[in-house]
């Protein structure tokens, strides 16, 4: 099956060729889960990730379906007082 995927912030480096605004099309086996999709791209899942499938928050063991759109967000620290430390 195929899903579409976007990685955000610090995870962008795992899809270096993706053009801005594009979804990465990924081929997976039937009944593949989110963490299997991330493993296929080499994204480490030991960090805390927020995963959204079709814009709804899900867990890493969520089973994907054909055509799902998956967005993965890492924690982002930046914004304020210690930005130059």
């Amino acid at each position, binding site marked *: 099956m195929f899903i579409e995927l976007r990685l955000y912030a610090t995870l*962008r480096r795992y899809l270096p060729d993706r053009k801005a605004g594009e979804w990465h099309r990924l081929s997976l086996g039937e009944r593949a889960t989110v963490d299997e999709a991330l493993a296929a791209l080499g994204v480490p899942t030991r960090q*805390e990730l927020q995963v*959204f499938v079709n814009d709804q928050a899900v867990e890493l063991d969520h089973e994907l379906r054909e055509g799902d759109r998956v967005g993965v967000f*890492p*924690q982002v620290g930046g914004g304020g007082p210690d930005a130059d430390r």
Partner: protein
Amino acid sequence: MDKKSSTRQQATPPERPARTFDEDQMQRYSRHIVLPEIGGIGQRSLLDGKVLIVGAGGLGSPLVLYLAAAGVGRLGIVDSDVVELSNLQRQVVHRTADVGRAKAEVAAEAARLLNPDVVAMPYAERLTSANALGVIAGYDVVVDASDNFPTRYLVNDACVLLGKPLVYGAVYRFDGQVSVFAPGQGCYRCLFPRPPEPGMIPSCAEGGVLGALPGVIGTIQAMEVLKILLGKGQTLAGRLLAFDGLSTEFRELSYVRDPDCPVCGDRPSVTEPIDYEAFCGLGAAATGR
């Protein structure tokens, strides 16, 4: 001092704005007052509002300026850093001549200069487990404009414990995130239960940040604060708004409160602020604090 003026002074102490609008205020806030959603009553809510901004950097800059301009009556600004030259590419509340000065003081001064109705309270210190509840208790709304994880978890936990709405924002390179953690509708820990391993998430200094990005995200945070104070519209509670600055795209993602959340869940295990440096795997020396 005669009795009449003494009474008037008592009725309107300098740190508390009068209940009525003087002519300057009518002009200053006229573009708010003509909005049916705001009017005089809404503007009074803003003038009576007390907002704590944690961080006077990239996100804090537009927050301070827009909330002061809007007439939010009391602004607390927490930041223990001093202005550095490398801040000025994005931290627009500070000026070149401010390099070396305390960011909290500079930001508070900017707020007062922009709008004398605003009582700006600088806290040129770190928010800690020892002082957070005491500081936050005095405010209606809290804004997370920090950029380190111990502070993010501390502010989150303190707001949950005190039942205060928290307006969250974060930026990295070209990406930004915003949400509102409203009491009972999920918190930062519901999204990110555990902090990242030390060094796993680069800071802005390591990863860079496009200067206008914190302007976008901080301004959305300011919008959310104003809506909360006004009680108007729908806030981002239960929604994470993600901004991709490279493609200029917003995505809105839904989340719900985690009943197993250690802070806002059904059976919370965190009932007072903890040691957030230790929680994040950081020693005091490692973070320079």
